[in-house]
Each structure stands twice: as structure tokens, then as C-alpha cells.
């Protein structure tokens, strides 16, 4: 106790002066003086909070009103003076989340998260009362991971709302939430969620350990955390999944994985993440198994198109013309008459044009959107071909590639695919098919060497696991999804035990 009182001087005026000093006389720090009436005397009190972070109405009704309008406090209600704070906490303030703080610095820290600090004249400690009530975005539909059938709510920037959305889905006491604070300056709240008894706790411990090693001043988005805690930095493939869908997080938790929620972003990280999971969309589980399986197949097909088609086009048309059916060769050849560039240069020009258009589409102000798309369509769609600079077949190749890269449900993976496309194009231009197959081997070896929080990235394909094949290319019916993925859910392997057939005998 002596320690604390040395840190906090007892006089109210000193409290105020110290607080102002700590915030460098920032003018959005509100200092509200009041008085608490005891039987024989009154004690001066002060409320600190930041303008805009707190719900002012709640301050009036839950703090000021009980303090000021309450009939005189008697000593026997609270006993000795040092316990006056406990008395306030226990029987005066009508608020849920209150805790005592011992130093002004920690009190100040809680103000940043929208708390109100109450301090009394002559008391070393103060009360920090949760009054957070800033303006925030409402829960909206997901903008990136949309579905036709399935829940249509997405995470918001508020970590408390996000955690609540998950807990609302998983109504199970074993759903554990642990708080961490990361960032020397931003003090960003990071919550880690997992389900006790399903998730391997060593994964949580590893997450906590890695979060603890982060030494940076700011965490502004989940990608900051992702880059700090991922297993392998030198890879184009994402080893941590992110989602803006609470149902995806719930599903991941139920598979025995760990979710990391970061304040200030609607993207939640999920670890460990496997290669195949980047091809599983939430909607796969909301439609019937047959169509979901077909669509999965289509996605893997899309992966190959998006990665290899420009490379194959370059390789085949510049090295292996004998592979093209005669009729096709003639029409390709006719289109190339008069095209001044080699196929590789032609492909690079078109890919670059497409990437520029795509980037411009994301980055431009909404108002000029139409202008960019019209120019883009005309330039790459028509003028280039009519001018004879680019062959029409190349336009087809680039378009199908561009579209195919977006059938991959996770944007991170489609970025990886886009990067590897250029790698393959280079190989194709220099070595033809031979180069492409060498490149495929390189990528496969690299993928097999990756791990995500200790789990082999390519499992259950890399280390093959027969029972896990139910959710790789196939999406078997819910009735057959009896066990959790063996990579994460070893502790509690069964989802269902006796699902009886509903067929009539």
C-alpha cells in the first residue's frame, strides 16, 4: 500500500494536476468535480474521462446521479474511510464493470478505452468504470466473403461486439477468451478465443507466446499481427487465415482451431491454417453436399487456370507448336500475324494492364469508377486487338485467368496465385513446358515444407489422412462429417456419434 500512495498523492488537486500533466494538457480530457456526502462531512471527488469515448448519458445516470442524489452515506454502510471506494463500488454506482486502480498511469490507460476514472480527495486508489460508448459502425453484411445462403452479418471494428458475435453462436461455457494488449503506443486489445476441450491448448500457448514477443509501437490491422506471428516470412502463401464472418470463426473454433480478434478491424485471424482451407468457403457448408463438392472441384480447377494458363499459352505457342491441334494452330497463328511482340512480352503487357486496372479499381475515388472501367474495357478489350498490337487469343487467356483467380474464396490465396503466375510465365518463356513442370515441383516442395503453428501446411494431403479427405475436394454430407479434422481436433475427435438414418425402414 505504501508503494501505491507514493505513486498517488492523496490530495485531489494533485490528482488533477498530475492527470493533466500526464495527458500534456490535452483539451479533450474532461475533468468533472463533484462531492460525496457523508453523515458528518463531504468528500471532494473528481471524474476524468475523454470526450467522445464515453456514453455521457450513462455517466449522468449511473455515476453522477447516484453520487449526488443519494441520501447521506453512513459510516456503518462502509466502515472505515479507506473502504469508502469499496462502498461506492458495492452499493452506490449502478454500473457493471468497475475495478480499482492503484496508479494514475494505469487509470489513464483505462481512460483510453472509454472508462471513467473516479478519484476521491485523500484516497490513493481510484475507481475505473467502464462507460465506453463511442460512435461505431453498425453490424453490416460481409463485403468480401458474401454468401447466397447463410448468415449475413460480418464483424465490425469493435472487438467487444466481435467477441459477443462469436459467443452468440457458440453458446458453450468452454468457449474461452483471453485478453492481450499489443503495441507500445496503440495498446491494441487482442483477444484470443478457443474452445476448452476441443482445441489443443498448446496452440493457444504458442499464440500467446508469439503475441508476447511482438515488440512494436502500433497494431492497426490484423495483418500486423499476422506478419509478426506467422511461421514462415519468406513465402507468398498465407499461413494464417482471416475472415470477416462470425460463422466461419465459430466453425474454426469447433474444428479445434484458435481465433485471434484484434480491436479496430473486422478481420479475425484463425490459426493454424492449411492450404486446403483457403479453398473452403463458408457457403460450402450451407448448400447441399453435391453442389458444394462440384464447386470445390471448380475452385481447384480455377486455381490451375489462374496459375498456369498464361504460362502454358506462352510455352505451347513458342516451344511446343506440335501440341496444338492443327485447326487451332492455324487460327492462333492467323491471330498472331502482324503482332509485333513475342508471346511472352504480349502476355506481360496484358497481365500488367489487367493488374493496373484492378488496382485502379480498388484505389480510385468512387466517382471516377465509370471512367476507368470504360477506358479499361476499350483499351484492353477492343482497341489493342483492332490495332493489331495484341492478339485476340491473348485477351481471352488473360481474361479467363483474371476471372479464375477470383473463384478462390480467400483473397490472400488469390494474391499468392497471382504472384506465382508471373513466376510461371517467366519459366515458360525461358524453358517452355520443361520450365513449367520444374516450377510446379518447386512450388509443391515449398508448400510441403511450410507449417502453420506446427501443423504441416499441405495436410491432410501432404501427410495423407484418409478420413480428413471428407472436406478437401469432397464436401461430404453433414451426416458423414463425424469427426473433426485430425490435425486440430485430436482432443475431442467426434462431432457426432450416432446420427441415425432418417430413411423409413
Amino acid at each position, binding site marked *: 500500500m505504501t508503494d501505491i500512495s507514493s505513486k498517488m498523492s492523496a490530495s485531489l488537486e494533485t490528482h488533477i494536476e498530475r492527470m493533466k500533466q500526464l495527458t500534456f494538457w490535452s483539451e479533450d480530457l474532461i475533468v468533472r468535480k463533484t462531492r460525496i456526502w457523508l453523515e458528518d462531512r463531504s468528500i471532494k471527488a473528481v471524474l476524468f474521462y475523454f470526450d467522445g469515448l464515453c456514453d455521457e448519458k450513462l455517466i449522468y445516470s449511473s455515476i453522477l446521479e447516484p453520487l449526488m442524489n443519494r441520501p447521506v452515506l453512513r459510516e456503518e454502510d462502509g466502515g472505515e474511510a479507506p473502504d469508502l471506494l469499496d462502498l461506492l463500488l458495492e452499493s452506490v454506482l449502478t454500473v457493471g464493470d468497475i475495478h480499482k486502480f492503484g496508479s494514475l498511469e494505469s487509470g489513464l490507460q483505462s481512460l483510453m478505452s472509454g472508462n471513467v476514472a473516479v478519484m476521491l480527495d485523500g484516497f490513493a486508489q481510484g475507481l475505473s468504470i467502464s462507460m465506453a460508448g463511442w460512435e461505431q459502425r453498425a453490424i453490416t453484411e460481409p463485403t468480401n466473403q458474401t454468401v447466397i445462403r447463410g448468415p449475413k452479418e460480418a464483424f465490425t471494428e469493435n472487438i467487444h461486439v466481435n467477441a459477443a458475435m462469436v459467443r452468440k453462436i457458440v453458446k458453450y461455457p468452454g468457449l474461452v477468451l483471453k485478453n492481450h494488449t499489443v503495441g507500445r503506443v496503440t495498446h491494441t486489445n487482442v483477444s484470443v478465443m478457443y474452445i476448452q476441450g476441443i482445441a489443443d491448448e498448446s496452440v493457444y500457448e504458442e499464440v500467446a507466446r508469439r503475441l508476447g514477443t511482438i515488440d512494436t509501437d502500433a497494431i492497426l490491422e490484423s495483418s500486423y499481427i499476422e506478419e509478426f506471428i506467422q511461421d514462415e516470412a*519468406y513465402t507468398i502463401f498465407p499461413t494464417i487465415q482471416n475472415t470477416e464472418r462470425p460463422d466461419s470463426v465459430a466453425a474454426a473454433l469447433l474444428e479445434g482451431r484458435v481465433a485471434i480478434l484484434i480491436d479496430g478491424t473486422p478481420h479475425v485471424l484463425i490459426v493454424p491454417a492449411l492450404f486446403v482451407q483457403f479453398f473452403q468457403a463458408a457457403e460450402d457448408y450451407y448448400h447441399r453436399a453435391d453442389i458444394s463438392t462440384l464447386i470445390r472441384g471448380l475452385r481447384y480447377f480455377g486455381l490451375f487456370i489462374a496459375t498456369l494458363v498464361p504460362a502454358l499459352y506462352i510455352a505451347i*505457342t*513458342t*516451344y511446343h*507448336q*506440335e501440341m496444338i491441334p*492443327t485447326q487451332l*494452330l*492455324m*487460327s*492462333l*497463328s*492467323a*491471330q*498472331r*500475324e*502482324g*503482332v509485333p511482340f*513475342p*508471346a*511472352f512480352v504480349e502476355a506481360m503487357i496484358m497481365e500488367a494492364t489487367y493488374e493496373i486496372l484492378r488496382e485502379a479499381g480498388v484505389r480510385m475515388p468512387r466517382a471516377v469508377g465509370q471512367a476507368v472501367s470504360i477506358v479499361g474495357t476499350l483499351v484492353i478489350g477492343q482497341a489493342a486487338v483492332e490495332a493489331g498490337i495484341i492478339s485476340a487469343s491473348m485477351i481471352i487467356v488473360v481474361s479467363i485467368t483474371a476471372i479464375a483467380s477470383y473463384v478462390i474464396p480467400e483473397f490472400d490465396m488469390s494474391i499468392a496465385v497471382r504472384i506465382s503466375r508471373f513466376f510461371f510465365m*517467366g519459366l515458360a*518463356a*525461358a*524453358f*517452355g513446358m520443361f520450365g513449367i513442370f520444374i516450377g510446379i515441383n518447386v512450388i509443391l516442395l515449398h508448400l510441403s515444407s511450410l507449417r502453420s503453428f506446427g501443423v504441416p501446411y499441405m495436410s491432410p494431403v501432404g501427410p495423407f489422412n484418409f478420413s480428413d479427405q471428407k472436406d478437401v475436394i469432397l464436401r461430404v454430407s453433414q451426416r458423414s462429417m463425424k469427426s473433426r479434422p485430425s490435425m486440430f481436433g485430436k482432443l475431442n475427435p467426434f462431432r457426432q456419434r450416432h446420427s441415425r438414418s432418417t430413411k423409413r425402414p
Partner: protein
Amino acid sequence: MTIRANRCILLVMTVALLWPLTGCWDRRELNELAISVALGIDKVDDKYQVTVQVVQPAEVASQKGGAGNYAPVVMYQTTGITIFEAIRKMTITSPRKIYASHLRIVVIGEQLAREGIGNALDLLSRDYELRTDFFLLVAKGIKAEKVLKILVPLEKIPANKIYNSIRTSEKVWAPVTAVTLDDFIMDYESKGKNPVINGIRVTGNAEIGIKKENVEMIQPAARIKNSGIAVFRKDQMIGWLTEDQSKGYNYVINTIKSTVGHIQCPDGGYVALEVVRSKSKMKAAVQNGNLRLAVDIHVEENLGEVQCQLDLTKVSVIQELERKAELRVKDLVEQTMDSAQKKFRCDFFGFGNALHRSNPKAWKKLQPDWDEHFAEAPVSVTVKVNIKRTGTIGNSFMLDREE
């Protein structure tokens, strides 16, 4: 970590620098190729005269622009002691190097074929650029070059026309045989069968045939026709089979897919029969030291056309037709066997191979002068015909009327 990062960067940079060192070696753009679809080989004064038909892609494929201004193909011709030289020499007139992977046909002039084509085919089977699935053809009575000059309707590329008409004709009419380079070499190498090659000729006015006028007419002045089978002994051509004999040949070697034949009715008029299935078996056996050859043919036919008064509802009538059809097929086969044994004294069916399979010891003994033994051996031909269907009507409507 920094050491690892440095190494990583070093590795990436090294690989990135190695990359352009290959300099796109061996690269050819599509518009640098002269896609040749047909090759003609003739012999002129002890030199090979090589003719190629090269596609003008813009003429063949493009939907708009230049189409119609040029011929769809262009011909290049040179002579050389070797064919390889001659082909390379074409660059004195051609702006692009001849690209032969998409070759559909190779036409050999009859004169060269009679002298022997073994040497001419060496390059074709040796060069890596050539597939061996193109058709070999003999230009009947003319130089190969003449065939490759004719413009044809329906197919823009004459070589494609020839290729497709052989395949179609083989499927539905039968007296042609599609022989690829592989087939030829296999037959040439096997001691129990001599090779054959399909023949081709130009009919009509070849002078107009080489002009675009030819395809502007409803009835083209010149046409390219399939014409029977050329028989080879080793690599030398020894003669032609007629159309009937060519059909008989296909009956014997079991390559009939479908064809149409006719038989005469008892009271005049004809009946056309469509062969829908044919199965034959060649047998060669040595009995009491004598070589005997046999051909068993099972044919399944449909009635296709009836020009006489027959009551097709009667089983006996159908049986009668079957018997006649058997005689007809037997006649075709015997004609062919006859010309093989008497005229050519050459086994181009593969009875030798049949004997080799059934009686290797006897084959070893007979093999050195197999063609002589073959020519002297008695042949028994048995044909069994089944008529299965009579089409969408039973009796001819003319018969119904008379009743």
C-alpha cells in the same frame, strides 16, 4: 535471421540472373512458322524434288480482313540430293522455316514409288519435328507436285481435303486404306507382309485446277480422287489394285468398317446391301508339307435399297439374298487373292505373319522365299453373311401397289 535472409536474397538474385541467360533458346513464335501440311516427293534427274504445301493462316482462319485475296496455301519447291537439304533450301524462297509437325499427308510420285521409297522415308521417320501419323500416298501416274497444286472446295486446305476424304472413305466406302508412315515401316520391316499405300490422282482439267477459278465453280474443273491401292514389294511399288480388289483387300485384312455393295435379283434389278459389321480371319497352315491359306469372313449387312419385286417378309427370300451376298463378297476376295498370287506374286495381306504366329517352325522354313510359297498355295475363302434389318420399310412400296 539476417544470415538466412541474406542467403535467401542471394539465392533469389542468382536465380533471377540465370534466368535471362537462356535467351529463350529454341523459341519460335507462331508467326515465324511456315506450317506445312503436305509434302510431295519426286525424283528428277537423280535428285529429289521436294514440294511442300504451306498454310497461309490469315487466309484459312481469319474471319475478317484479307480473306479471299490470296490462295489458302502456298507451294514451295526445291531439289536436292537429300530431302533434308532440299527442305532447308526452301528458305531461299520462303520467308519462314518449314515447320513439319502438322504434316497431314506425304505424296510420293509414282515414278519414285516404282524406284523405291525407302531412302526417301528415312528423314521422315528420323527427324524429331515430324510425327509419324501422317498418311502416305502415291500419286497415280503423275508427279506428286501436280497433286499438291490443285485447289479444292469445301476444305480450304487441300491437304486437309485429301486427309479427310481418305478417312471418310475408309469409314463408309472401304476401297481405300489409310497408311501412316508407322504402318508402312512396320509392314516393311515385317517379313510376313508387304506394304501397301493408298493411291491418289487428279481428274479433270489440271490447268484450271491450279487456279482459284477452280473453287469458284459449282463443278470444279479439277478434282483430287482416291484411286485404289498401290502394292509394294519391299519399298518398291509393283502395281495397282482396282477398286473392287481394293475392297477385297480390306475384307481380307479386316479393316472394313462400313461399305455398300449390290447383288442382282433373280428377276432382274438390283439390291443394295450396307455392310455394318465385318469380321475376318486369315489363316495359314502347313498340312502334310503343303501350305494352305484360308480366309473366314463374317459379314453383317442391312438391306439398303431394293429395285426389284421381292417379298422381303419371307425368310427364304432373305436367305436367298444372303447366299448371293456371300458369293459377291467371295468374288471380291478371290479377285484380290488372284491378283496377289498370279499378277503380283506378293503377299501384301500378311498371311506370312499369320503363319508365323500359328506355326513358327514352318514359318522359319518357308520364310526365305515366302512370296513364292504364297503364290502357289491354295486359298479357301469362306464367307458368311447375315442380313439383319431391312430399313424403315418392309416390302418395296412398288410391290404393295401391284397386289
